[in-house]
């Protein structure tokens, strides 16, 4: 009994020390056979432990410059209490045979509070400890011999997936050590034999030798496993975690296995890093590989928890394809799953899950039948279980990080956009304010020609404001994907003329419209002039040498598709309309950004060209809504040609 107690104490201390949550916890450990319960208090970071254990830790001087390490306080053996095994979280873990985590209200729903040894727990976890057979098979029948249970009182803390993964690993370690300690009479609950206590001097019976030998092996394995877990959890980058898994997996396999792969869920195919590891040969560095392997073919993987592929030789299956390509006769695939799925899954074995896969470890040997011993498979399974937590965290972190960065960028653009839009509004407002002011100040001395000219200026400014408001309304519709167009036959020449007439009178001669009078396209009556307006406005803004040209030519669907343009409309006859300027041209890099939202703003703010940075993005939305496409060609020093295509329409019948 004493040896067990010492071991459990040690195991607990280590389990708790490894947890990321260093708040105030109470820990119990309970092997079924002995019904022994140990309680430990964990005092960690005073910031978090304050209130958790009903006391704060103000006594520690703040200016020592030392970080307070989490400490574990184990009460004397006399303070131990025994709880019935079927109570609370431990009972659940026993029955369901997989890790259970309950948080907040879930505790009330799942168990009776009075069944918990810690009545005011805010989060609790129960991790079943499975008996490990001395000769592990591929899937040992899970036999629960104890439950590792932990309670947190601090509502600020909760057990993370990584914590649970660590506990699962730790439970496995406890089971292995118990197997060794119980080796001589494995199935009887009994007093631990004194001569087999770890601290007893070695004796010389062959039986003990073999046990000691096995124990040494296990210790080596355990330290390897804990190293692997540390390595896997060291990074929050999924790619690095994947690489670490492959590397660690290679360390856990011995002679037969040559290569290990990772399946990337998002790429929907097998790709990852490959290693060609040999225990006594050179360690070939990683290189990236890719298999054409349909992800749905891994359906069996979800059901079984593992998969051994064997090609049937008729050439029709994915296995056959891979086999032919990579000279594989069979291989082993182990899934990486989101660890919370492990907990949610009820009434199934400990390793089953049907949730989304995070990837899979792919093990095979080229040029020979796959051969790996069951022990190694078991180790790989343990490793993959830990990797699931690490990968889950890494992916979660990456997603959060990406979303945060994207939001930050968007916020910045929106701020800039509001600033720019308010600036854009000032020019027409100044014009209206100015001309009305002039009329009221000098009204009596102004002749009719002057008054007409001022009225025309006011009208122009009003039109500009109206156009800007229409565009803003469209932008908001595009943001919510509610942009509706009503395509009908529109005369392209007239639309271009209308757009030009809205430009400043002195700028108008700098544009020549070469679109035929009789060209009708399928477009939107409001939006086509607005597109012209944007493109012509841009051309005028960036060019001051030769006049800009608005051109048009016919094109077939086939020709446009050959040019790599995506067309949503099935029309056969198309018109390609172009706006050519003779400005400084646009570099290839900037061209790629042009049609993106806020494309111009993204460049730089040192050259203050006015505009919202939305014009071309808006054009693209319009033309795509009409089934066409827009693109740009540019020559540095000689300007750019913006072209878009729209289906040719028949002229409307004469009314």
């Amino acid at each position, binding site marked *: 009994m004493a040896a067990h107690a010492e071991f459990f104490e040690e195991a607990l201390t280590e389990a708790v020390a490894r947890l990321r949550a260093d708040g105030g916890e109470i820990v119990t450990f309970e092997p079924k056979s002995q019904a022994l319960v140990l309680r430990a208090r964990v005092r960690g970071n005073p910031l978090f432990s304050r209130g958790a254990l009903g006391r704060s830790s103000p006594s520690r001087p703040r200016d020592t410059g030392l970080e307070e390490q989490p400490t574990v306080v184990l009460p004397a053996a006399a303070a131990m209490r025994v709880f019935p095994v079927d109570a609370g979280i431990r009972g659940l873990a026993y029955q369901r045979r997989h890790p259970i985590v309950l948080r907040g209200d879930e505790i009330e729903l799942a168990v009776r509070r009075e069944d918990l040894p810690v009545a005011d727990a805010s989060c609790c976890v129960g991790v079943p400890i499975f008996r490990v057979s001395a000769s592990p098979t591929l899937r040992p029948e899970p036999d629960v011999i104890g439950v590792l249970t932990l309670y947190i009182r601090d509502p600020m803390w909760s057990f993370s997936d990584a914590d649970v993964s660590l506990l699962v690993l730790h439970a496995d370690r406890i089971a292995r050590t118990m197997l060794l300690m119980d080796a001589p009479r494995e199935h009887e609950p009994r007093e631990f034999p004194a001569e087999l206590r770890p601290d007893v001097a070695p004796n010389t019976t062959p039986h003990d030798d073999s046990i000691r030998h096995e124990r040494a092996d296990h210790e080596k394995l355990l330290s390897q496993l804990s190293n692997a877990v540390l390595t896997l959890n060291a990074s929050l980058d999924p790619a690095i975690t994947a690489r670490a898994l492959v590397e660690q997996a290679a360390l856990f396999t011995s002679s037969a296995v040559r290569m290990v792969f990772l399946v990337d869920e998002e790429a929907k195919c097998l790709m990852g890093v490959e290693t060609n590891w040999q225990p006594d040969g050179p360690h070939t560095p990683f290189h990236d590989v890719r298999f054409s392997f349909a992800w749905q073919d891994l359906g069996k993987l979800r059901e079984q928890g593992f998969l051994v592929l064997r090609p049937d030789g008729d050439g029709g299956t994915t296995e056959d394809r891979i086999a032919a390509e990579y000279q594989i006769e069979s291989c082993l695939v182990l899934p990486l799953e989101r660890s919370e799925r492990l907990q949610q899954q009820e009434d199934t074995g400990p390793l089953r899950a049907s949730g989304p896969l995070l990837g899979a470890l792919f093990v095979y040997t080229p040029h020979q039948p796959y051969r790996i011993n069951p022990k190694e498979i078991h180790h790989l399974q343990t490793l993959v279980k830990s990797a699931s937590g690490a990968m889950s965290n890494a992916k979660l972190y990456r997603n959060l990080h990406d979303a945060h960065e994207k939001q930050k960028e968007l916020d910045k653009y929106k701020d800039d956009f509001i600033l720019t839009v*308010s*600036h854009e509004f*000032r020019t027409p*407002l100044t*014009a209206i*304010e100015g001309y009305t002011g002039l009329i009221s*100040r000098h009204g009596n001395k102004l002749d009719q020609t002057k008054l007409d000219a001022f009225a025309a200026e006011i009208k122009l400014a009003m039109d500009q404001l109206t156009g800007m408001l229409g565009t803003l309304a469209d932008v908001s519709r595009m943001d919510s994907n509610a942009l509706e167009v009503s395509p009908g036959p529109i005369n392209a020449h007239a639309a271009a003329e209308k757009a030009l007439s809205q430009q400043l009178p002195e700028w108008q001669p700098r544009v020549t419209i070469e679109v035929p009078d009789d060209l009708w396209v399928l477009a939107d009556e409001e939006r086509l002039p607005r597109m012209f307006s944007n493109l012509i406005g841009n051309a005028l803004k960036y060019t001051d040498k030769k006049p800009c040209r608005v051109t048009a030519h016919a094109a077939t669907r086939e020709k446009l598709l050959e040019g790599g343009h995506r067309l949503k409309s099935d029309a056969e006859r198309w018109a390609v309309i172009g706006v050519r300027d003779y400005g400084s041209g646009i570099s290839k890099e900037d061209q790629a950004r042009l049609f993106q939202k806020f494309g111009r703003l993204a460049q730089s703010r040192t050259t*203050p060209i*006015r505009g919202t940075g939305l014009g071309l993005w808006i054009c693209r939305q319009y033309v795509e809504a009409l089934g066409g496409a827009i693109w740009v060609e540019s020559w540095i020093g000689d300007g750019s040609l913006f072209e878009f295509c729209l289906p040719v329409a028949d002229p409307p019948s004469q009314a």
Partner: protein
Amino acid sequence: MAKPTVLIVDDDPSIRKLLQEVLTLEGYPLETAADGAEALAALERGGSRLVLLDLLMPNVAGWDVMQALEANGTRAQHKIIFVSANDKLEDYRHLTPDDELAKPFTVDQLINVIQKHVA
């Protein structure tokens, strides 16, 4: 007293045109420039002017003009009035215009600010 020449510097033709209309009716001799480079060229021709200077312009911006004048020592010859959007003016507090005018402005505001600097 003779009215000084006013130099209108703005890249937006509609604003240039408006200022021209207002100041012609007030009887000021005028010059216009569409960007900072044209403005500097006009100022190099000698004489002192009252400059209505837009800050946000392509190529050579308003603040570039200010810096160039301070560098070549002719800043003091001229009265310089910034004409720009409010939110932009605050970014250029380190430059010292003789006055500033925020868009959109009224005709009265424009005339008052100019008369203030016509000695």
